[in-house]
C-alpha cells in the first residue's frame, strides 16, 4: 500500500486505461506495455516507484509464491501426504517429508485430519501452479485453538502496517494473539472479551481498510471499542 496516506494525490485506474506514455518508465505489476503506453490491467491505485509504474489492485485473488506464510485448511489426507486449501486456485500439497512429525504409513490422519487448520510456508510453486507446502520451520504447526478469519488480499498489508506497527497495536489493544497469513487469512486467539474486540476491529478493517486516513480512524475505533467493553 505504498502511496496511500503519503498525501500525494492518488489516481484510480481501470483495465485498459493508459497510465503513462513517457519514455524511461517500465511496466510493473498490474500493468502491461502496449505500444508506447503503459496500460492498467486492474482496478487500483497508480504507483510510480523510481520509474516502475504499477497498479496497487483494490481486489485481487491470492496467487501463492514461494516463501509465503499461509493458513491452510486440510481438505484431504492420503497415506503419506496432506492436501490443504490455501485460499488460492489450487490446493497445496504437504508431503510427509516436510511435516513436523514422523508417522506410521497410513496414520497421517492421526496428526492432521480433514478440517484441521494449519500454519505452513509455501516451499515452492512450479510453472503449472502446483504448490508444495512445508511445516518445518519456527512456529509452523497445527492451529488447535483460536479462530480463522478471511480478509481481502489488499487489507493484509493494512493490518500489518509499516514494520508491523498496526499489528502490534492490535495485539496490545486486545491482548490477543494474531497471525497474519500472506493468503488473506488471519488467525486470532485470546480470551472472550479480547476476541470480540478483535473481531470488531477486523470488521472495521474490512469496511474501512481502503481509506486514506485508515490508521488514524483505526486508533479512534480501538479506543472506542475498549471504552465500551
Amino acid at each position, binding site marked *: 500500500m505504498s502511496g496511500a496516506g503519503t498525501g500525494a494525490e492518488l489516481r484510480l485506474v481501470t483495465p485498459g486505461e493508459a497510465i503513462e506514455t513517457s519514455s524511461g518508465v517500465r511496466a510493473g505489476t498490474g500493468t502491461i506495455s502496449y505500444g508506447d503506453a503503459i496500460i492498467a490491467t486492474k482496478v487500483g491505485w497508480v504507483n510510480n516507484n523510481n520509474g516502475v509504474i504499477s497498479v496497487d489492485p483494490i481486489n485481487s485473488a491470492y496467487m501463492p509464491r514461494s516463501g509465503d506464510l499461509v493458513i491452510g*485448511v486440510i*481438505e484431504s489426507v492420503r497415506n503419506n501426504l496432506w492436501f490443504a486449501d490455501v485460499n488460492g486456485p489450487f490446493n497445496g500439497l504437504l508431503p510427509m517429508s516436510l511435516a513436523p512429525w514422523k508417522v506410521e504409513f497410513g496414520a497421517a490422519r492421526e496428526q492432521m485430519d480433514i478440517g*484441521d487448520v494449519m500454519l505452513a510456508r509455501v516451499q515452492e510453486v512450479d510453472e503449472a501452479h502446483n504448490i508444495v507446502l512445508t511445516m518445518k520451520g519456527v512456529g509452523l504447526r497445527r492451529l488447535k485453538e*483460536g*479462530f*480463522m478469519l478471511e480478509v481481502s488480499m489488499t487489507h493484509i498489508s493494512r493490518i500489518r502496517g509499516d514494520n508491523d506497527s498496526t499489528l502490534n497495536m492490535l495485539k496490545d489493544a486486545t491482548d490477543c494473539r494474531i497471525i497474519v497469513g500472506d493468503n488473506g487469512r488471519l*488467525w486470532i486467539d485470546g480470551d472472550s472479551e479480547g476476541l*470480540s474486540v478483535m473481531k470488531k476491529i477486523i470488521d472495521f478493517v474490512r469496511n474501512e481498510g481502503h481509506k486514506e486516513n485508515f490508521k488514524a480512524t483505526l486508533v479512534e475505533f480501538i479506543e472506542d471499542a475498549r471504552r465500551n467493553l
Partner: protein
Amino acid sequence: MVELVPKLLQQELKRLAENDQRIDGRSRWESRDIKLETNCLYNAEGSAKVTWGETIIYAGVKFEVRTPWPDRPAQGSLMCGAELRPVAGRKYEPGPPSPESIELGRVVDRGIRESGCIDMDSLCIIPGEKVLGIMIDIHVLSDKGNIFDACALGAIAALRTAIVPAERFDVGEDYPLAVSMTPTMCSFTRVGGRYVLDANDEEELGGNERIHITLGDEGHLHSLQKGLKGTFTPAEFDEILQVAQQRCAELAELVNSQEA
C-alpha cells in the same frame, strides 16, 4: 461442491453459544436487516427483490391461460419453483436442478399453497376449458445464509402485488390478483448446539440441522420442514415455535405494507 468446514469454525461457534453470543454479534433470536422492494422487474406480472443481510433473491410471477386438469375442471393452478444457479455462490454448480433447489422450491410452494391464500376456484375463466395458471419463479443471486426465509418472503410479496394480464389473454381487463393471506417463513438452524434464528453463511457452514416453519395470518402452521443431519426435541420445537409466531407476524406486516 461439498464445502470444507474448518474445525476452528465449529469450535468457535460452540464457544460463542456457551457465552450466549453469535458470530456476527447478533442475539439468538435477532434477524439481519431486511429490505423488500416490489414491482422491480419489467415483464414479470408481479415481482420482488429481497435483500436479507447479504443474501439477495428475486421472485417473479407469470400467468398462463391453459386447459384445466380433467379432475378439477373449474380450478386454476399455482406452481412455485426456485433456482439455485451457479450465480448464487461458489459452492453452486451448473447442471440439472439440484435436490437442494427442488427442496427450497417445494417448501416455499407448500407454505403458500396450503395457507389457502389463493382461491383456486377464482382462477377459472371457462369451466372445463380455460383456467389461469400462476407460476412463481424464485432466483437466488447471492447466498449468504438463510435463503429459505428470503425466498418465501419474496414469493408472497411478488404474489401479493401481481396484476393478472387479462387483456393480453383476451379475457377482460387487467386486475390485481386476489391473495387473502400473507404466509411467511421463519427458519432456525442449530449452531454451536442450540437453535438460532436466521443463520448467516458461516453459521450454516459450521452448524447442523435446520427447521423451517411457515405460519399464516392466524398463526396456524402451513408448512414444516426439517433439513440436514441431526435431531431435535419437542421442547426445542416449542421454544422456536414461539419465536416464529412473533417473527412471522412482523414479516407479514412488512409484506402488507408494500401494497399501499
